[in-house]
Every structure is written in C-alpha cells, then in structure tokens.
C-alpha cells in the first residue's frame, strides 16, 4: 500500500525536525493526533493542527498527557492511524498508557523530543536521558520498538517507519528525537506518494462469531477488528486469553506476556537498523545515536586525520537493541567509544552485547548542549592505546 497523495507534500523543503516528523506522520496515514503542549515537541502538533482540516484529520489538544496518551488509542480502535507527541515530563505521564498499548496490542506512535531532566530539567535544551525510560518506563515486562533520527530528513523517514512497524507488529513505537534534531532546520526531500510504502493494518478476515481478538497468527501477531463492525469484542489491559477474557493467574500471564515479548524478539533482524562505516581493521569504533552521532562524526574525522583506524556505528533503531551488530563489532575492534547525552545509559547495553570482547569507554554528558568533538576524540585516542 502507498501513501495517500492528498496528504504528501512531495518536494524539496527546508524544515525543522519537528515539522518533518509531522509530515512523516501525515504521509504514513496519520489523521489523528492528541497532544498536550510541551517544549521542544509542540511544533509537531502545531503543524498537524494547521494541516489536519485540509486532509480531513483531527487534532485534539487534551487536558493533559494522561489523556492524550490514551485518546489516540481510542481513535485507533475506531480505525484511525494516530499518534501523540511529548517531551520529558509529559513522557513520564504517558508511561501507563504505553503499557496499555503494549498489552492491548494497539498500533500507535509516541514521539518524544528529549530534553534535559530529571523533572522540569532543561525545557529548551537537548539531552538523551530518556532512552532507558523508553525501554523500561512502563511497569511490567515488555518489548518495545524505538527509532532515533539524527536529522530532519530522518525525522520524516523514521516517523513513516515507526507507523509501519507499529502496524506490522501491533506495538506502540516510539520516535526518540532530541531538542537539537527537533529544532534544527535542514533540507528534507519528501518523495512522491507512490514511493512511500505504508503498512496496511492487520485487519481480520474472519466474521464476527469466528473472531478472537487475541488469537495470534503465525508470527504471533493477532489480527485486529475495528469498533462498530459487529464483532462485539472485549479489549482489556488485564491479563487475558485469546477471547479477551480476563485471566488473573500465572498460567494466563505466562502465555500472554511471553507472546507479547516474543513477537518483537523474533523480529529483531527486521527491526534492527544501523549504519556501519569504516575500515575492516579498525582499532576503535564509535557507537552513537541521534544528535550525538553528528558530533561523533566530526570526532571520527579528526581521529582519521591523525591516521587512526576508526569505525563508526550509528543506531537508527535503538530498541530492540542491535545486539548482534555490537557483538560482531566487539569481536574485531579493541575499543568501543559510546558518547551520549546522559550519564551512561545505552553504554550499558553496549557493554552487555560486547560481553568483554572489547573495552567500552563511555563519554557521558549531562545534557544542555552537545558534546565537544574533542572529548569524543580523547576517548578515541585513549581507546587506541
């Protein structure tokens, strides 16, 4: 299925990341957004509010993020593709409903334009301190998908991908941007609608009466039916069986939660998305994501100018984590350098995946601005020794 040309702004534009994210959502078929204003994410829904009427879409500004994060899910069950947008404190408020979307297998997209925390923190300045919250922020066991763009172009591309993955696997997908990427303005090329692939919703072919809302198909993902079509199903956040009957017991829990996790785990190859560049015989590799990857780029260039053999790996999908890519990298370099705008979050995943095969050096930063390339360079220099 392709994007609807009526809503795709095909052409070459000069957009910031927030605006590009909005265009990505429209291209992916989103016609419903629920939000609550918060810097530095608000421009996404501001643009959506101005674009929605002409394409028959709806934006509703809810009374808080608790509301916004479930309003979009109501819209999904009525047949919409929907998203919500937030930052820091709002993301914290949305956590219960991220879990609700996991449990009810509601395809939807949560955009978090990261700013400095904890608490109100740095409302207008960047950080990457929410990457673990994105993974583990809601209570209970689950697997989640999160993509992480490093440019306005990627804000467009990865937002489309986020919607597609959410439909494919029936999980909430997060777009983790940061203040710099959200507010930076660059060239964005929006392709013609027929070149934008849109994943159709997995609607059931079964008739009411034969349909069970949580009966998994071969890839463990169940097919969905919309409200108002005579299916008369029950959707619940309580542990349930295939018919949606509550099952508050260990056996039902084991069956359901394992399937919810396994459907994402077994797709990790399809989900993994990263860029690897550099010499095969590199001594050091820099692993980064989001805005930090653009600073790392410069540090790697400076190191190469000094004759060092340095590779770089950039994560476009951060959850599920690219275990095998890091494992392979760790097998061939001496050291992996991990700069991030937090005091050491994703570096723990790198250490886990590297499993002692390479030395791992974090380059932490509490946020508020980006790294100095020299700080990453010194870690590279340290790593060569």
């Amino acid at each position: 299925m392709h994007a609807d040309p009526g809503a795709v702004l095909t052409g070459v534009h000069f957009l910031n990341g927030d605006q590009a994210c909005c265009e990505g959502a429209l291209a992916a078929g989103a016609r419903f957004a629920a939000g609550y204003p918060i810097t530095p994410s608000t421009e996404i829904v501001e643009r959506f509010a101005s674009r929605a009427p002409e394409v028959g879409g709806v934006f509703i500004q809810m009374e808080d993020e608790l509301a916004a994060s479930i309003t979009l899910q109501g819209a999904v069950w009525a047949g919409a593709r929907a998203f919500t947008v937030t930052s820091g404190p709002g993301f914290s408020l949305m956590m219960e409903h991220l879990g609700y979307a996991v449990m009810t297998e509601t395809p939807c997209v949560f955009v978090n334009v990261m700013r400095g925390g904890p608490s109100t923190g740095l409302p207008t300045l960047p950080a990457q301190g929410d990457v673990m919250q994105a993974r583990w922020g809601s209570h209970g066991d689950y697997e989640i998908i999160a993509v992480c763009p490093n440019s306005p172009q990627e804000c467009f591309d990865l937002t489309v991908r986020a919607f597609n993955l959410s439909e494919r696997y029936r999980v909430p997908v997060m777009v983790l941007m940061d203040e710099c990427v959200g507010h930076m303005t660059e060239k964005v090329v929006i392709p013609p609608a027929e070149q934008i692939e849109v994943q159709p919703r997995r609607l059931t072919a079964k008739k009411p009466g034969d349909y069970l809302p949580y009966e998994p198909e071969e890839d463990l993902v169940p097919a969905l039916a919309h409200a108002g079509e005579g299916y008369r199903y029950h959707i619940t956040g309580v542990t349930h069986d295939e018919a949606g009957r509550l099952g508050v017991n260990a056996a039902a829990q084991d069956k359901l939660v394992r399937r919810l996790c396994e459907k994402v785990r077994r797709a990790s190859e399809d989900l993994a998305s990263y860029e690897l560049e550099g010499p095969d015989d590199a001594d050091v590799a820099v692993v980064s994501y989001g805005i930090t990857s653009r600073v790392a780029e410069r540090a790697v260039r400076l190191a190469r100018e000094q004759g060092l053999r340095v590779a770089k790996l950039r994560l476009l999908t951060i959850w599920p984590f690219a275990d095998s890519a890091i494992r392979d990298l760790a097998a061939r370099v001496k050291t992996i350098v991990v700069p991030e705008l937090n005091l050491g979050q994703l570096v723990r995943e790198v250490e886990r995946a590297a499993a002692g095969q390479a030395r791992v050096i974090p380059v932490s930063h509490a946020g508020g601005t980006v790294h100095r390339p020299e700080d990453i360079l010194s870690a590279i220099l340290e790593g060569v020794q």
Partner: protein
Amino acid sequence: MSNAVMEPGTLVQEPEAHNPVEPFLRMERIPHIWCPGCGIGTTVNCFARALMNAGLNTDKVAVVSGIGCSGRVAGYVNLDSFHTTHGRAIPFATGLKLANPELTVVVYSGDGDLASIGGNHLIHAARRNLDIKVICVNNLVYAMTGGQTAATTPVSSTTATSPYGTFEPTLNLPQLLEAAGATYIARWTTYHVKQLEKAMTEALKHKGFSFVEVLSPCPTLFQRRNHLGDGLATMKFYKEHSQTKHGASTADTGLTKEGDIVVGKFVVKEREEYIEGMTRHFTEHLGRPFEFKVRTC
C-alpha cells in the same frame, strides 16, 4: 403434568425462562464477580433495557470502562467493549468517538474512577459537550481496592483509610458537571429502576455530553462498615430518603451519610455538540464542507 402427587424430592423441570436483556449480555461470562446485594448488576439490567428502548443498532454502540467493580461492566455487555486504565475511560472514549462519530459511545464506570482520578477528564469532556454518555455508578467508595475513602464519600463515614471517620467535604457530582457544561444530568438510585432505565434511554438519545449518576449500594465495603445494613436495607433507605425533584438546583444535590437524596433529571440543555462545532468551524475555515477522513485503516 398429571395431577398425580409427586414424591417429595422429585425435581420439577421448569420451562427455561429467558430474560429479554440476555442478548445484551455476554452470558458465557456469567456468573459475574459482583457481591450479593451489590447494585452494579441492577444498573446493567437498566442499561440493557435502555438499549432496547433507544432502538439503536447495537453494532454501533461501544462501552468504555475504567477500573473498579463498576469498571467491570464493559466485560459483561455484549457490545464492543473496552476496559481501559483507572480514570481514563473518558479520554479513550473521546478518541473512539472522534475517529468514528457514527458510534454511540458509552462510558460506564465508578465514582472514584470518573470523579477522582479521572476528574479532570470528566470536566473537560463536559466542557467540550462531546457526545458521549457517562454512567457513573456511585457507591460512595473505592470498592474494588477494599473500600477506601473517595471524593464522593459522605462526611463522617468509616472507610478502610478513614478508620476514625471522614472529615473531607464531599464532591457533589451534578453540580460539578453542570458547572463544567454537561447538557444532560440526571441522578437516580438502584431502587428507581424504571426512572433509571428512562434516564439512560434519554442519555442514549441526547446529543451532547450526558451524565447519569446512579447511587448504588456496596454492602460489602460501605454499608456494612457504616452499620447501614445489607443491600436490601440500602434499597429501603433509598426508597424512604429519596426526593424526586426534576430541575432541582444542582447546588442542592449534595449527599450526606444518612440524609435525603435528591434524585431526578436536573439538567437538559441544548448547546452545540463538539463534533458539530468542529465541523462547522472547519467548514467555515476551508470554505467547503469539512469531511472527516480520520479512518485511514
């Protein structure tokens, strides 16, 4: 059957009695979880009858509940049903209705769920006058979690978290809803089954935000702890202490522990409904009819 005298202990085969509300219930999920004497089941019976009265295509009716004993209603109605999170049934219902305005969307939940944790959403949905129908089962406590104090608990009641009695002022729901802008507001008790059925029918047909409060006994956790007897005693109390006052000022509908209960239809107003307003507004803005094209899947 012959006139022969039956041996004592012989089983009499009674003809299978069908209740007309059965098609609206998920009979296979019954027995339900509610205690003997609980009023929630009574409200569901009235709701099923209201669905029949309203003559709606029930394929297009969805019920959204939050969490609580009352929040379990969604699980028993034979409709599209959503059991959401504590306090957030209204925002979920808002998304459902906005994406498909053809649906009749009913929110069915408890006093704690709708008016305490979800109070903000209640206010704003009423302000918007979005066409959803809220049925609030008010048993004066947080029942599911063991009978703790709620915003609706009358002063001087004993609850699990107020062992020496409650002293906080009590929320008067009709007054709150009127101030917020609800366009249909009624209150009945589970004693008033006919009136309740009628109010629910009216709410289903009303265009705009409708709120039906139902006082309902929780003998297990409220009445017993307060020495107010069982479910039957509560029905007697409702019968003796209810005063029907249609159009009563909602300033006078506050509840006390053993005082009179003002019941009736308090507010029926005409005001532009949210989706109508949105459609009018964007039609003016676009200079052509605004068409909902939200359902792209």
